[in-house]
């Protein structure tokens, strides 16, 4: 086997079954790649080689005795927002210090129960707050993709998106077969789009939030980032499921999502929301979107213009609701029971010093906004109003899904930008989520599929939004786009040059 890191999850599953390589060999290939190539990308914040090899050895035993489970021996990266028992978990914040959870998150336990192997913890924006992975206490993640030589600024480090920047970068750079991630306002889909990977945020309640560091409890959802649609289906099937420990977990069976991959889209009704066409939208985004519509039409789907009138209010409403919920969720970080403690003149002084030293700038901003909008005298004007606007946003989707089965939109307003280019202005950074937050606000599933390349030679994605618990339609329609995009690119969309491995 020449380079096992280039495999997909589905491909590796087959290779292991055919004994073309062992689980230990597969894991070792990734551990070598991480050791050689992680530093310039900073995708991993903690590699767990001994743990991984022990898991892989167990997988080899199972494969040998014919007892291989769904993800036996498959090496994965885990976003550092999932609590992993006995292994440091930080949410990429100083305030969690060297926190070592004495318990495992349900989503990751689901993966280990199916035989998967953990290569390490992946970088993310601090407490999942960000769209560029520039707010991490461990430093920024660098996108494996670079602009074309003739694009000017070709050597500039680009962001991988956020908050799941480490997850997206690791998958795009073949430093894991797939990764876990979370999405509150676009944190799976936006990084997937600008790294040329697949990212799906399932319906709210599909995956358990137990053991996942909470940001905004009514918006957070776990999901996979992977190289292909099939891999995303395999991963989501493993990650999803009812959990009695999460009161918002939905008790509904998990379909075999793989069966939906590649299914025909003949007769599928695809809606194109007119309000997603923004003034001054980049021409290449508009063209890619039109291209996506043509691809689906060629595959037998029916395209209809639809209207989601309250679209423009989703982002401002999100930036009231999410900070409000985060101010509540982050109140627990007080230096008493875990994490960083900075002494103070008294108890309140200790709280204030600990939180001042432990939280980064963006986290502080959002906690303060949240505290403000929930405070006496402002609650009705901001939070209550935003929650009512949210009902209207959901209602728009409910109306539209009476006419169509799925919606097609761009995922991001543009390709990956340079590190430092947008960190001056908070609102400018927030605008990166303009196409994705609506989906979290409505609790619906959304997927980003690699669809093409920008004029700078960097990836662009298209987003599909589905009805609640209809992830199967997303896999079905997503496959059609994946296949058409590969065809249009002459067989397959390009992969980045492995410049991060050059040093060794």
């Amino acid at each position: 086997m020449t380079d096992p890191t280039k495999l997909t999850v589905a491909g590796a599953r087959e290779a292991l079954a055919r004994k073309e390589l062992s689980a230990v060999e597969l894991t070792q290939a990734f551990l070598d790649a991480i050791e050689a190539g992680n530093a310039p990308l900073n995708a991993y914040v903690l590699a767990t080689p001994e743990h991984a090899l022990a898991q892989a050895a167990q997988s080899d035993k199972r494969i040998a005795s014919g007892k291989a489970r769904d993800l036996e021996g498959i090496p994965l990266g885990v976003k550092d927002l999932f609590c992993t028992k006995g292994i440091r978990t930080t949410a990429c914040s100083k305030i969690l210090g060297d926190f070592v959870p004495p318990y495992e998150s349900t989503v990751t336990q689901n993966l280990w129960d199916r035989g998967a192997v953990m290569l390490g913890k992946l970088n993310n924006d601090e407490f999942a707050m960000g769209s560029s992975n520039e707010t991490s206490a461990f430093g920024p993640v660098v996108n494996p993709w670079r602009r074309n030589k003739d694009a000017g600024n070709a050597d500039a480090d680009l962001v991988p998106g956020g908050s799941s920047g480490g997850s997206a970068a690791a998958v795009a750079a073949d430093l894991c077969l797939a990764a876990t991630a979370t999405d509150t306002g676009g944190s799976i889909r936006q990084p997937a789009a600008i790294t040329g990977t697949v990212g799906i945020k399932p319906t709210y309640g599909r995956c358990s939030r137990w053991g996942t560091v909470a940001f905004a409890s009514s918006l957070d959802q776990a999901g996979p980032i992977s190289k292909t649609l099939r891999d995303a289906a395999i991963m989501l099937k493993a990650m999803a499921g009812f959990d009695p420990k999460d009161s918002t977990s939905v008790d509904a069976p998990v379909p075999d999502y793989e069966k939906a991959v590649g299914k025909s889209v003949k007769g599928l009704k695809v809606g194109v929301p007119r309000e997603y066409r923004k003034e001054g939208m980049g021409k290449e985004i508009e063209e890619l979107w039109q291209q996506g519509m043509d691809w689906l039409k060629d595959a037998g789907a029916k395209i209809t213009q639809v209207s989601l009138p309250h679209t423009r209010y989703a982002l401002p409403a999100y930036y009231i609701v999410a900070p409000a919920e985060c101010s509540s969720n982050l109140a627990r970080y007080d230096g008493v029971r875990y994490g960083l403690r900075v002494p103070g003149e008294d108890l309140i002084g200790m709280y204030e010093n600990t939180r001042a030293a432990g939280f980064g700038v963006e986290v502080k901003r959002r906690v303060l906004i949240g505290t403000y909008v929930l405070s006496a005298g402002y609650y009705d004007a901001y939070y209550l109003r935003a929650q009512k606007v949210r009902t209207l946003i959901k209602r728009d989707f409910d109306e539209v899904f009476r006419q169509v089965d799925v919606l097609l939109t761009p995922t991001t307003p543009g390709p990956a930008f340079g590190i430092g280019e947008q960190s001056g202005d908070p609102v400018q950074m927030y605008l990166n989520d303009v196409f994705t937050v609506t989906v979290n606000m409505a609790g619906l599933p959304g997927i980003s599929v690699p669809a093409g390349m920008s004029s700078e030679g960097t990836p662009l994605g298209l987003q599909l939004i589905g009805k609640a618990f209809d992830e199967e339609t997303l896999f079905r329609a997503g496959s059609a786009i994946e296949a058409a995009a590969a065809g249009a690119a002459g067989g397959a969309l390009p992969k980045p040059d492995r410049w991060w491995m050059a040093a060794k």
Partner: protein
Amino acid sequence: MQVDEATVRRIARLARIRISDDEAVALKGELSEILQWVKQLDEVDIADVEPMTAAVEMTLRLRDDKVTDGERADDVIANAPMVDDHFFVVPKVVE
């Protein structure tokens, strides 16, 4: 919506985050910008609209009143900055 420095300090106190003078000035600008931007929600007609409290319609599940966990004090204090026996130690609370 312009917030003044006094408001920023009051909010920081509520959030139990100490802020320096420089931070107070910077935050005044940033928070004002963000709050001004979200003010566009005032344009929306929300008469007779219920606030959305859950993303998906569901009734909160109840469980049997049985003890199914506990006796894990060692795990609970395992990450604590300062402990004494099975107690978290904190600075004196000033009366």
